[in-house]
C-alpha cells in the first residue's frame, strides 16, 4: 500500500492497489475484520478510479510562438 491518500492517487496508482486489494480478498486468507477493512479500501479506490474516468475531457489547443519560436500562448483548435 502506498502512503498517498486515495483521493490524490493517479488512476494507475489507484488501479494497481485496487487490483491488489481484490486479489487479497479473493484469496480468502485474511481475517474477517481485515477483510471488511480491505473491502472498504477497495470501494474507496474504485470510487477514485470512477471519478478519474468520469473527469476525462477533451481539450485541444495549439501553442503560438513568437518569431524566435518561443511559446507565447495558446490558440484553441477545432477538434474536427
Amino acid at each position, binding site marked *: 500500500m502506498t502512503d498517498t491518500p486515495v483521493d490524490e492517487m*493517479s488512476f494507475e496508482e489507484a488501479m494497481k492497489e485496487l487490483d491488489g486489494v481484490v486479489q487479497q480478498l479473493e484469496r*480468502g486468507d485474511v481475517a474477517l475484520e481485515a477483510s471488511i477493512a480491505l473491502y472498504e479500501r477497495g470501494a474507496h479506490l474504485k470510487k477514485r478510479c470512477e471519478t478519474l474516468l468520469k473527469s476525462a475531457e*477533451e481539450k485541444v489547443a495549439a501553442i503560438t510562438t513568437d518569431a524566435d519560436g518561443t511559446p507565447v*500562448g495558446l490558440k484553441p483548435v477545432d477538434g474536427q
Partner: protein
Amino acid sequence: MDLIDDGQEAGNAPEFTVSELSGAVKRTIEGEFGHVRVRGEVGRVSRPQSGHVYMDLKDDRAVIAGVMWKGMAARVATKPEEGMEVIAVGRLTTFPGQSKYQLIIEDIRPAGLGALMAMLEKRKAALTAEGLFDPARKQPLPFLPEVIGVVTSPSGAVIRDILHRLRDRFPRKVLIWPVAVQGDRCAPEVTRAIEGFNRLTPGGALPRPDLLIVARGGGSVEDLWGFNEESVVRAAAASQIPLISAVGHETDTTLIDFASDRRAPTPTAAAELAVPVRLELAVWTEDQGARLTRALGQGIALRGQRLADLSRALPRADTLLDTPRQKLDILADKLPQALSTGVQRRRLALSDTAGSLRPAALRRLIAGQSDTLGRLSARLGPALARFAAQRRRDLDHRAARLQPRRLKAEHETARRELDRLSARFTAAAQAQLADWRRRIDTADRLRETLSYRATLERGYAVVRSGDQVVTSRSAAADAMALEIEFADGRFAIGGGAKPARKAKPAAPSDQGSLF
C-alpha cells in the same frame, strides 16, 4: 593555334589587356552559369580555420573546384565528405589572379537514395556509438497522461487522426506545437518544439505535457529527412518527457525512432500507445468492484458455512453427559455391594490376625526372647573376666616398665641438693643477721648522738603541753598545763591560762623513751 592564326590574319582585331580578357571571361561565366545544379563525386575536402569549406567535385574525366562560404556551410544540412555522390547547387565564378574558376556552392545534398542511405547509416553508427539509442535510456510511458504534447503540422490528416483516436479511447488535454514536417525548417523547428515542451513547468500557464508525440505522415526519404537530423535525434534522446515517435508509415524508419522511448508505426498507433481505453477501464473498475463485493460476500458465506458445519459437528450437551451419567449409575449400583464386600474383607483379615494372637504364641515369643537373654547373660561373665584380665595384663605390663631405682636416685639427688641449699641458706641468713645487727648498733649509736636528749644534757629543756611541743610564748600562754623535760626527767607546771584544777602530777620519769 587557329586563334593565333586567325589573329594574325585579322590583324585589326582589338587587343585586350589580360585584365580585360580575364574580366570578360568572368562576366561571361558568371552570366552564363549564375545558377547551376551539378552532380558529381566529392573529391578532396578541406575545412580551414576560416570556416569556409573547399572541395573538389569530380567525375571520371573532369574536376571543378568548389567552395562553400562559412555562413552557407553552417546552414547546409549535408556535410560533404570525400567519395559522397552529391548534387550541388550554386554559381560559377572565376578567380582572375590565378586564372582559375570555381563553383560557389549554395546548397549541397546527397545524390540519389543510395548516397542518402549510406550517409544515414554512417550517422546512425556514430550516434549509436555515443549511446544515444541505448535501451537503458528509454523511459516508461505514463499509464494515463493528463496532458499530451503533439509536435506535428497543425493541419493535415496526422493531427486529425491522433485527436480522433484519443477521443475514442480516452479524451485528454492536447497541446499542439505546430512545426514544418518537411523541408529545411523541419529539423530546427522539431528540435525547438521538443526542447520547448521540456522547458515548460508543470502546472504553469502552459501545462507541461506528461507525454510527447512527434508525428508525421508518410513521404519519401527526402520528405522525412528532417527526422534523421542530428539535432532532432539529440533533442528526442534528451527529452525528460517520455516521447513517442510516429514518423511516416510502418516501413519508414528515421533516426528519431531509435532515440524515442517508443516508436509507433503510424500517428493513430501513437495515440493508442498514449492512452488506455476509458471504456475498458470503466468495465475493469466495475468488474473489480463486483469482485470485491463477491469476495467479501464469499468470505462471509464461507465463514458462515464453516460455522454451521462446526455447529453440527458439535455434539449435544445431553449426549456429552450420557456416558458419564451411565457410568455414574453403574457405579452407584455397585456401591452398596462394594461396601459390604469391603467390610467383609477387612473382617476376614481381622479374624485372621486375631486368630493368630494366642497366649501360647506369646509365650513362645517370650520363651524365645528369654533364651536369647540367657545366652547373652551366659556370655556376659566370661566376657567381663576376659576384659578384666586383659586390663590387668596391660597394667602389669606398664607397672613392669616403672623402675624404682631411678626414682630412688632422683630422690637422693634432690635430697642432697636440698641439704646443700639449706646449709647455704643458713650461712647466708646468719651472715645477713650479723650484718643487720651491726648496722642497727651503728644506727642506734648515731641516733643517740643525734637525739635531743644529748641537747638536754647540755642544759636545754623541751616544753610540752599534753602531747604537743610548745615552741612559742603565745602557745605557752594558751596552754592549760605545761610540762618541762630535762635531761634527768620531766617537771609539770601550770600553764599561762587560768588553771582549772590542780596540775597533774608529773608523769613517771621512766616514761621518757618515745620508742
